[in-house]
């Protein structure tokens, strides 16, 4: 199994999707074992690809160690004028993504066996997870923009179907629609960007496009516009401002789905896309600045919103949005290493947090933090793993998040204005604060809902296993940044030696930055602990302290209202105009009018039909005579 057979990775779950979707009623246990077996295979194969890749690894991700494998022609018009090939491409970024996707997907599937036990449409759920995995892996290994776009929409579809998995619930159906439509707005940008790039280079092949752009074959303004449009697609998928509104609502789906799709894998597709094109973004600094500041704004906004949200899953969703903002900031300052590293660690600790929250919800049937509390004694394992994930998210040293967040802060300090660094550092501190709030309100203090608390029970093994594994990964994943660890695993060096833009990057802690960030985090944690661990009423004090600010945050900066108003006024107004036009002009004047005109003539002309055969015979004879005359005359 080498890089040439990488197409097998998406092919296996795709086949399993078809089998389960068709036969889930016949298969024992709805076919979940088939999906898990397939994912184990995929994970093993992914690791084999990684080994093969690091064996042939020579240098920067843009250069020769990328491997573009032609699979087959899809469309080929006039030789190379318009060619779409199915080709796979493996580089350091893709390998990182393969490992992340396959491991997290496997964990989530195993967890789902316990979590979704006894649900209706159990088999369909696993079919969808397989479908999602197939689409995501296609997206990751695609060497071609069209194939990438196809997979891009495929994961969007999977996300839509899984958010709306409980479609009997109105909110779930609405959330699914919202997610689909919002990401579609970005996808239009992506599609336009793809077409623009094709127009400039005549190719859909990603490497060809990147080479052409780096060689200066595309005008700078043109390239800037194309790259910003690509980023629009990425922002839609990765829930960046102003298209971030769908992700919190996406929590209507089953919790394991939130862990897999809306935390660890699908939402980082945007990061992946921008990282893929980072050599080009390095050429157009305006587009890169757009990425940087959008990411920064999103990170800050989402963190503040996470501070007041009371739904445990939504807090995590805001956290995800915020962390994705961090990744975009890293890309915005040109550090693929930091962005991919954070993606790597974030996938583990965020899916851990989501699975932990799923465990809490599974145990208590509650997901509002006001109704929880004191669960650490009832759910010791969940509490421990959740706390580990939280520490990683908060950026406490030795946990995975510390390394990657520190890397991003360092790069920001080096590559961006100081104000951006300060804002980002502040956001990191806010992260620690809301994380502490979440942990304290959920697991510490006194139970607020006696009934839910008393019926709480620890999760079954199939759910606990992934939690423990992911907790371990969330603890140690950060160490791959260190050279020694990387060498011990058989790589050339640490993570920075594997994924980089121009030249290898040796990880080293900047003492000032690291100390500052750690101190800020610890202070924030201490503050949060002091504030929220007390009596329940204290949690409500924030509202009295600054009611306007609180209302602003709880209402998500009124962005949803703004969008709703915009849709009501502009879109519906336009729709009314169009509907009027359709009703009056098209339908009543055009269609009905035409029909009425014809009907009128029919009413008048029907008297031509006497029903008497001699008349018909005469008409026929006249026609015959005319034709005969004509034939004789022209002869």
């Amino acid at each position, binding site marked *: 199994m080498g890089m040439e057979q990488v197409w097998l990775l998406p092919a296996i779950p795709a086949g399993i999707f078809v089998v389960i979707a068709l036969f889930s009623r016949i298969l024992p246990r709805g076919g979940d074992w088939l999906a898990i077996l397939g994912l184990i295979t995929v994970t093993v194969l992914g690791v084999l690809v990684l080994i093969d890749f690091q064996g042939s690894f020579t240098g920067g991700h843009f250069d020769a160690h990328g491997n573009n494998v032609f699979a087959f022609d899809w469309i080929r018009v006039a030789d190379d004028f318009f060619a779409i090939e199915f080709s796979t491409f493996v580089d350091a970024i893709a390998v990182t993504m393969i490992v992340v996707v396959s491991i997290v997907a496997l964990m989530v599937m195993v967890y789902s066996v316990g979590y979704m036990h006894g649900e209706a449409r159990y088999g369909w759920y696993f079919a969808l997870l397989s479908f999602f995995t197939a689409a995501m892996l296609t997206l990751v290994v695609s060497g071609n923009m069209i194939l990438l776009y196809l997979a891009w929409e495929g994961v969007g579809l999977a996300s839509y179907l899984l958010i709306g998995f409980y479609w009997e619930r109105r909110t779930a159906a609405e959330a699914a629609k919202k997610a689909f439509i919002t990401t579609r707005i970005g996808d239009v940008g992506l599609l336009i960007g793809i077409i623009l790039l094709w127009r400039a280079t005549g190719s859909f092949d990603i490497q060809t496009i990147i080479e052409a752009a780096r060689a200066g074959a595309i005008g700078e303004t043109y390239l800037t516009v194309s790259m910003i449009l690509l980023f629009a697609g990425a922002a839609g998928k990765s829930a960046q401002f102003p298209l971030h509104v769908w992700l919190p609502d996406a929590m209507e789906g089953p919790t394991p789905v939130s862990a897999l799709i809306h935390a660890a894998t699908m939402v980082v597709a945007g990061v992946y896309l921008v990282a893929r094109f980072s050599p080009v973004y390095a050429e157009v600094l305006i587009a890169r600045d757009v990425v940087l500041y959008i990411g920064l704004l999103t990170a800050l906004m989402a963190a503040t919103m996470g501070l007041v949200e009371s739904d445990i899953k939504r807090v995590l969703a805001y956290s995800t949005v915020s962390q994705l903002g961090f990744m975009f900031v890293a890309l915005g300052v040109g550090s693929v290493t930091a962005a991919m590293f954070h993606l790597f660690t974030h996938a583990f600790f965020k899916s851990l947090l989501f699975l932990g929250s799923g465990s809490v919800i599974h145990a208590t049937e509650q997901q509002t933090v006001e109704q929880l509390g004191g669960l650490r004694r009832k759910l010791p394992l969940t509490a421990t793993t959740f706390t580990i994930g939280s520490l990683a998210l908060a950026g406490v040293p030795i946990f995975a998040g510390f390394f990657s967040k520190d890397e991003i802060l360092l790069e920001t300090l080096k590559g961006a204005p100081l104000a951006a660094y300060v804002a980002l550092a502040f956001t990191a501190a806010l992260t620690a604060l809301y994380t502490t709030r979440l942990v304290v309100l959920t697991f510490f203090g006194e139970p607020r809902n006696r009934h839910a608390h008393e019926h709480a029970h620890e999760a079954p093994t199939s759910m606990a296993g992934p939690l423990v594994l992911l907790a371990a990964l969330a603890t140690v994943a950060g160490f791959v940044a260190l050279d020694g660890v990387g060498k011990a695993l058989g790589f050339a060096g640490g993570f920075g030696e594997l994924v980089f833009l121009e030249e290898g990057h040796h990880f080293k802690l900047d003492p000032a930055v690291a100390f500052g960030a750690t101190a800020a985090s610890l202070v924030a944690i201490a503050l949060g602990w002091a504030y929220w661990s007390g009596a329940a009423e204290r949690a409500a004090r924030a509202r009295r302290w600054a009611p306007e600010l609180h209302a602003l945050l709880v209402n998500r900066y009124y962005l949803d209202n703004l969008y709703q108003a915009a849709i009501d006024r502009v879109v519906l107004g336009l729709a009314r105009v169009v509907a009027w036009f359709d009703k009056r002009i098209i339908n009543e004047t055009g269609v009905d009018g035409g029909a009425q005109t014809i009907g009128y003539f029919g009413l008048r002309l029907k008297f031509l039909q006497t029903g008497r055969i*001699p*008349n018909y015979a*005469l008409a026929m*004879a*006249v026609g*015959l*005579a005319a034709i*005969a*005359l004509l034939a*004789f005359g022209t002869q």
Partner: protein
Amino acid sequence: MLDRLPLPSQFDRIIVQGSIVAGMLGTPILVVLLALLLLSRISAPEFVFWLDATVVIAGALGAVLLRNIVHAALALIATLLGVAGIFLLLANEFIALVQVLVYGGGVTILLLFGLMLTNAQDEPVVSDGSQKPFAFGVAVIIGGLFIAAVIDANWGARVPAVVSFTAFGERLFRDFLIPVILIAILLDIALSGAFVNARRSRDEDEMAPTGGEARS
């Protein structure tokens, strides 16, 4: 039913009247033709042809123009027999025989029966349709076109051949065997269809078992 047939006296009258009309029309033509023959302007076959053609055309006109249906049917008989004569002139005795047997015998009798079973007895005189002028125009155009086409074409001096019975039979039953069989089947089906179509259906019988007798 029998009393709906034309009485022999009526037939006599029709035949006598028809003969008088035919004689009055035909005699001048006959005289002219005889004169031409005696003056050697036309040959004997041509004389016969023109005589025959007179019968055919006159009969056809009678069939189309006469207001009495029975008279028209009788005029048709004259035409069909005249056409048989034309076939004889064309040296094809077999077709002429068939023409006499099938048309003169079968078809005409069938037509007369149809007349009797419908409205011949009650209202023998009928009026024509209202589109006569148009019909006349179209017929003139079509006929004119045919005539023009015939005159226009250069046929050369063609010599008629005599078709013997034997040759005709060989050709018909050897080369055209399958069409003959098909025609036979067609006839069979057509007659069955005519029978099924024309006979009273069962419920009609039950509803009006005495209707026919009451009307007669």
